[in-house]
């Protein structure tokens, strides 16, 4: 992030208006990091997701939410009260020149303000609007309340995640954390918006997208639906590994330093695999009887699965720090991973080689902070964070005065009357 003009991203030149809370802000970030000019439209005083922690130095303040910071990179911010008539008029002016409107209001809210897609596209046939809502615009649950946890329950994530009976007797279904229900909804919404944009390059026309977070979550449990549809199976939860109709061997082992290693073995134990495994374990003098020629017989391997996994592999991993076991195994072609905490990633040289970490300047604080970067490296049009999350209404002047040609005096009046 230098002063030099950066190479434009794949979505350069597109204007996105984002009216999104915690449900949709990640979608706006994806579009912004991909190069679109995302203008976040916040209610006067700021979007409520600015109140979600953690906060810079644990001081709660709408400009210090790290959650907001993270999910709103590469955006600009204006404030606008859509409940005020003039606020709606300003929004219509913006929508007339925009490419995408992304909104997460309850179904019917935009229409109740006279801002439904049919009206907006009368003045801009190229406009794409995506309404990303908990359950979509129709149906018996349309107006139900939701949250990340609620979506992980109804979407099926929880039914698949949890513990072996031996680890936590009668344990609950567990919802993985991190706000991933919102991520799932945003990934699908982003994909739909990108598809509409590609279509528009040829058709010249926009369209309306009704996206449902519940459906996105219900789609994100790999083979769970197929197991039921094709075999009538309802899968059971297992510690640190795949749900299954019948108990499968464990894949998560505790290393010497108390951390865990994910060592995928089950279903892959054949003579060649066992020879390679013996080589790996032997490097550390831990091969036990695994070099015994009897293990070249698949029937013997099948009988010895528990011995190989629960004795040899478990002891091998228990004898090493988790990171060492991970690298040793990967270098020999084993698809194993170390269970890291997010902070462990900062030192990973592979990520540094890829330029993954970004220094993002927060000029108002006179500091810069390290942010996680992008999923992929684009060779011709980089996916990259272009700036820190905006302050509340930071770009009111640029948008209202420079673009919509309001005077500064008008801006003052609009601020006083809570229109902006």
């Amino acid at each position, binding site marked *: 992030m230098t002063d030099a003009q950066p190479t434009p991203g794949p979505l350069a030149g597109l204007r996105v208006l984002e009216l999104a809370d915690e449900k949709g802000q990640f979608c706006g970030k994806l579009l912004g990091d991909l190069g679109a000019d995302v203008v976040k439209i916040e209610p006067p005083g700021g979007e409520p997701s600015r109140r979600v922690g953690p906060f810079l130095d644990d001081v709660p303040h709408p400009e210090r939410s790290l959650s907001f910071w993270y999910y709103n990179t590469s955006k600009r911010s204006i404030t606008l009260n859509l409940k005020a008539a003039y606020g709606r008029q300003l929004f219509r002016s913006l929508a007339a020149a925009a490419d995408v409107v992304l909104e997460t209001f309850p179904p019917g809210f935009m229409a109740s303000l006279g801002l439904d897609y049919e009206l907006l596209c009368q003045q801009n046939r190229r406009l794409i609007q995506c309404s990303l809502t908990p359950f979509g615009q129709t*149906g018996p649950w*349309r107006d139900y309340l939701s949250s990340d946890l609620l979506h992980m329950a109804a979407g099926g994530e929880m039914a698949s995640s949890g513990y072996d009976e031996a680890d936590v007797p009668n344990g609950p279904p567990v919802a993985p954390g991190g706000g991933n229900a919102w991520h799932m909804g945003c990934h699908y919404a982003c994909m739909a918006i*990108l598809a509409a944009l590609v279509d528009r390059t040829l058709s010249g026309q926009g369209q309306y997208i009704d996206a449902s977070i519940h459906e996105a979550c219900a789609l994100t449990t790999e083979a769970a639906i197929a197991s*039921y549809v*094709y075999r009538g199976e*309802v899968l059971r939860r297992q510690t640190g590994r795949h749900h299954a109709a019948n108990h499968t061997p464990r894949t998560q082992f505790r290393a010497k330093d108390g951390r*865990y290693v994910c060592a995928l073995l089950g279903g892959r134990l054949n003579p060649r695999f066992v020879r390679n495994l013996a080589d790996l374990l032997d490097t550390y003098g831990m091969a036990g009887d695994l070099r015994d020629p009897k293990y070249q017989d698949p029937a013997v391997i099948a009988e010895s699965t528990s011995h190989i996994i629960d004795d040899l592999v478990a002891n091998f991993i228990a004898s090493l720090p988790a990171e060492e076991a991970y690298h040793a195994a990967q270098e020999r072609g084993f698809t194993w991973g170390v269970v890291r905490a997010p902070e462990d990633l900062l030192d990973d040289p592979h990520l540094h080689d890829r330029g993954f970490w970004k220094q993002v300047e927060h000029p108002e604080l006179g500091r810069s902070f390290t942010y996680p970067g992008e999923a992929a490296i684009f060779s011709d049009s980089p996916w990259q964070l272009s700036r820190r999350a905006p302050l509340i209404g930071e770009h009111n002047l640029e948008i209202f005065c420079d673009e919509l040609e309001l005077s500064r005096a008008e801006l003052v009046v609009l601020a006083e009357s809570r229109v902006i």
Partner: protein
Amino acid sequence: MTDAASRRRALENVRVVDFSWVRAGPWATRWLGALGAEVIKIEWPENERGRLPSTTTPQHLEVNLNTSGNFNDTNVNKKSLSLNVRSAKGLEVVKRLIAISDIVIENFSSRVLRNWGLGYDVLCRIKHDIVYVSMSGYGHTGRNHHYTTFGPVAQAVSGLTLLSGLPDKPPAGWGWSYMDDTGGMYGAMCALAGLYHRNTTGRGQHIDLSQMVASIPLNGPALLDFTVNGRGSRRAGFPPGNRAHWPGTPLLNNYRGPTVAPHNAYRTHPGGYNDWCVIVCHDDEEWQRLIQVMGSPSWATSEIFATLTGRLQHQEELDQRIEAWSMTLEKYQLTEQCQSGGVRALPVQSAEDRVEHDPQLRHRKMYSPIEHPALGQHLVQNAPFELSRTPALNHSPSPLIGQHTQEIVEGLLGYSHEELCSGFADGTFWPANRTRFHYMEEMLR
């Protein structure tokens, strides 16, 4: 369906050469197909991974290359060309195909396509504006590019696994390959962004996606809590199970939204394996509404629960009390009562629940039947969005392996029928010593 099926689709006239296998890559191209692209899956039975091994073949059918249920759901909307790309003739065929395609996508480990003689430089010479999406485990650059992943490994290394579980227990992790589903989404997003860029600038590119790296940005707030505040995730009370905060541990945000109670899963009647409901109250008002829904029991009006901090402090007792009530109701009944009383609640749903009992998914037609020549008629999962003008539709079942070889080789690429037959004889289109499926015999007539 017929009305929607006749409409234009977003990726009409886009052709995708799809080398992807297992799950993440095929999940990406499934959506490109639903959006209207012609997706040509390049397969070879000797090193096929995705059709076999199959744990989702219906009990009454033989497990073979054409009977995996999960493969069917993951590979709708595609055609299959069986082709030995590692033979000179096979390579020549695939190059002819790439020359008339828009996107090349694969999810092999990082060196495979280059070793086949199909690195990005070669692809560009064949088709100057090709959009090449590689979906490898660790990416094509970086010192560990040769490392390999499956979903659970990407999840472990990226920090996602650690986000899931109860304090002082091993990580529960994700009970499926979340990063195969999500890696697929990134594959599709990258392909579409690359296509948009090509359509607007005339330039293609190589998009180097990594499944492991793509997982990391899903931990954003936790990472910033460390890089900004110096606070790591290895700490007492993290992860807090289904709660927003684990009682008796320092009061910190745990990256799932606001720190509130109640925020948990509760058992429901009749107490079966998936008889659970989650209930969340974001503020005092929502808590007061839950009290009403529960019938205003005297314990609930106790002062210790009146404030958010009180509820967080006495969460153990609060959760026990709520569960004593929730056990009296069946999960859909409880959901209905809570939601009509303005309380956030939804049932934990298994796959069976989603397919059979979820009224919203039924209304939205989330699952619809599709006829497969070997599997028969089964439900497949539809798109979680509606595009008003260019719908995303599942228009065809997954292909049988090599089902479209003749159509592609003769019809699309213009090889003669004799060349097709000799390609079958010399092991280009099917291993010469392997039994052919009946539809292949028909191609050779």
